[in-house]
């Protein structure tokens, strides 16, 4: 290494930093091992498994959206096909007594996802931007509709099922109990996350970022942006296939919903709400959205509407997602100015909460009168009972909604001012750039 390099290039990470970095992964592995000891109920194990699957799926989606700037409306195609092939594979392996244990079966799903990404990707990635988004939607519709036509293979509306416990066993694990499935999912999640993180730090990973930022200029440094997009698409399909395979193993069934628009929309929601700008964003999004969809569906019948509203709110007010919001505060934290903005948050929180409560009251009341008009007007939403026919409730909803909105708008401008002051101080201290 020349002197110039050592003075101009970013320094190699110090041993302490390296230690911290690898320590983080080891800690994650240990956490995954210990988690079932802390929450051992069947329900929480299922939830953890679903979160793990969702993490792989969302991270694979972010290879497209966050890393390469490709907005796909059809990512479930590769997830679903991976799932279907794995169900068939389990049946074939079981029938022929092949010496293939369940833990390696997700790889079949990954390869299926990869194969279809290789086949469909070249056409799909010819264009970027809006055209790519529409093409991904069209290809997804094509595959989903074809799946319903090819009934023998895809099992029509009912789908196809398999018994995961009939395979060749190692260490006498039957993979019948959920705890064993949890460990299978956890191991694959860790592997996939490490692999996808490593991918971001390769020449291809960097060129994906370059294509996202400026596909035109990429051509003038020797790269074909179409090839870069295509390769990103193939990797994304591979990991989506693994996620689909794990889902199929978890449920022991694959049906047309795996391939459908709702599945594609959900992964988009999870990834975007988590934040596409950081590697950890989709992980946070996957956890948040899985818990939210499980939790909200118990609290209210129209949880999907809330889901959509949350998504719209994130797109409008926090385009960086949850992770983006958190990361915004890092320079303030470093400069010790966080305490200057927190009070304004508290002030803004009260009317904003009032507005949200008003909105929920209004929605739930409307739902009562449109969905179940004949029934008892004493309804329960979010664990709270109230009388939807009571005019006082209507008035309260209106006051909270309108009043909350007007006050909240005012307080958020204060937050803006406090924010500007704090960041300018942080900038002076040279923390924020």
């Amino acid at each position, binding site marked *: 290494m020349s002197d110039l390099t050592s003075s*101009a290039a970013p320094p190699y990470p110090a041993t302490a930093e390296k230690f911290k970095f690898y320590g983080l992964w080891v800690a994650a592995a240990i956490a995954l091992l210990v988690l079932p000891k802390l929450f051992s109920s069947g329900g929480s194990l299922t939830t953890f498994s679903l979160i793990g699957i969702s993490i792989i799926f969302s991270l694979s989606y972010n290879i497209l959206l966050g890393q390469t700037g490709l907005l796909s409306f059809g990512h479930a195609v590769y997830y679903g096909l991976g799932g279907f092939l794995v169900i068939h594979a389990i049946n074939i392996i079981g029938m022929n007594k092949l010496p293939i244990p369940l833990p390696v079966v997700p790889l079949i799903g990954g390869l299926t996802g990869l194969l279809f990404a290789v086949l469909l990707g070249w056409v799909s990635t010819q264009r970027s931007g809006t055209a790519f988004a529409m093409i991904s939607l069209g290809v997804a519709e094509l595959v989903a509709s074809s799946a319903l036509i090819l009934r023998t293979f895809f099992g029509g509306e009912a789908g196809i099922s398999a018994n995961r416990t009939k395979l060749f066993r190692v260490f006498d694990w039957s993979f019948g109990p959920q705890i064993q499935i949890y460990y299978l999912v956890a191991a694959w999640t860790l592997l996939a996350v490490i692999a996808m993180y490593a991918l971001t730090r390769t020449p*291809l990973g960097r060129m994906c970022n370059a294509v996202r930022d400026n596909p*035109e200029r990429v051509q003038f440094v020797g790269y074909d942006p179409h090839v870069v997009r295509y390769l990103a698409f193939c990797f994304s399909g591979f990991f989506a296939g693994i996620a689909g395979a794990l889902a199929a193993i978890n449920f022991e069934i694959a049906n047309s919903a795996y391939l459908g628009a709702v599945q594609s929309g959900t992964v988009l929601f999870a990834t975007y709400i988590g934040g596409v700008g950081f590697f950890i964003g989709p992980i946070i999004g996957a956890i948040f959205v899985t818990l939210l969809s499980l939790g909200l569906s118990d609290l209210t019948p129209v949880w999907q509407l809330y889901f959509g509203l949350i998504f719209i709110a994130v797109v409008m007010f926090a385009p960086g997602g949850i992770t983006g919001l958190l990361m915004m505060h890092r320079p303030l934290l470093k400069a010790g100015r966080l305490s200057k903005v927190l009070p304004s948050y508290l002030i803004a929180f009260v009317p904003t909460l009032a507005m949200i409560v008003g909105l929920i009251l209004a929605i739930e009341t409307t739902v009562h009168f449109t969905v179940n008009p004949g029934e008892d007007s004493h309804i329960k939403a979010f664990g709270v009972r109230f009388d939807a026919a009571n005019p006082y409730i209507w008035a309260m909803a209106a006051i909270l909604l309108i009043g909350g909105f007007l006050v909240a708008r005012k307080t958020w401008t204060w937050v803006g001012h406090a924010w500007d002051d704090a960041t300018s101080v942080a900038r002076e201290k040279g923390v924020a750039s």
Partner: protein
Amino acid sequence: MSTAIELRGVEKSFGITSVIRNVNLAVAQGERHALIGPNGAGKSTLFNLISGYMLPTTGSILLRDKVISGLPPYQINRRGLSRSFQVTNVFANMSVWENLRCAVLWAAGYRYAFWKNIDNLPEVRDRTAQILGDIHLIARRDVPAGLLTYAEQRALEIGITIAGGADVILLDEPTAGMSHAETERAVALIRRLTEGRTLLIVEHDMSVVFGLADRISVLVYGQIIASGTPEEIRGNPKVREAYLGEEAA
């Protein structure tokens, strides 16, 4: 002396408007060649044609005696021709370091590698550091390119253009919009970085053109009306009438 770039009867028209008309031009290996002309003469279009951004309507373009017209930009770049843009065209969300490194990767042979850690490529690191030093942006290494000052972005633009080690360099108005002092620094930079390479430069600042170029071609209404050494161009009455006359007056 062999030719680096040669244009033979190149024409470009958009619909019925012809922008480039029968242009013949040869730039010798190692020559610094300036392309001047009034606004709208088609200078940037000519750059777009040479670099593969647009296809010529007729005619052919040769790089070191091999036809390149019809090839996509990335293949032309791989054959050793690199260009900059008039409007700064960098990777805005990536740091200065990443910008330069992306421009180094292909030429260093890493292409679409997804099995190598990008931070563990010593020759890429050395080359990137060298360019970073050359364009005097070491202090701004980790700043996202979109947040640089205008002059810094122009320097980065040049850095990206030369980073791959192409030996034919096309610079499109590298000093446009710069102050006098910034222009001087930029010219020194260009002179140093293109040492031993072939340079084709579009420039409006006549002091830059006459200070830098070995030869000059004048493009007016899509046609080259004169080509020669700076002295010949200065003395050429056609050029004075068509172009320099207005500017000098």
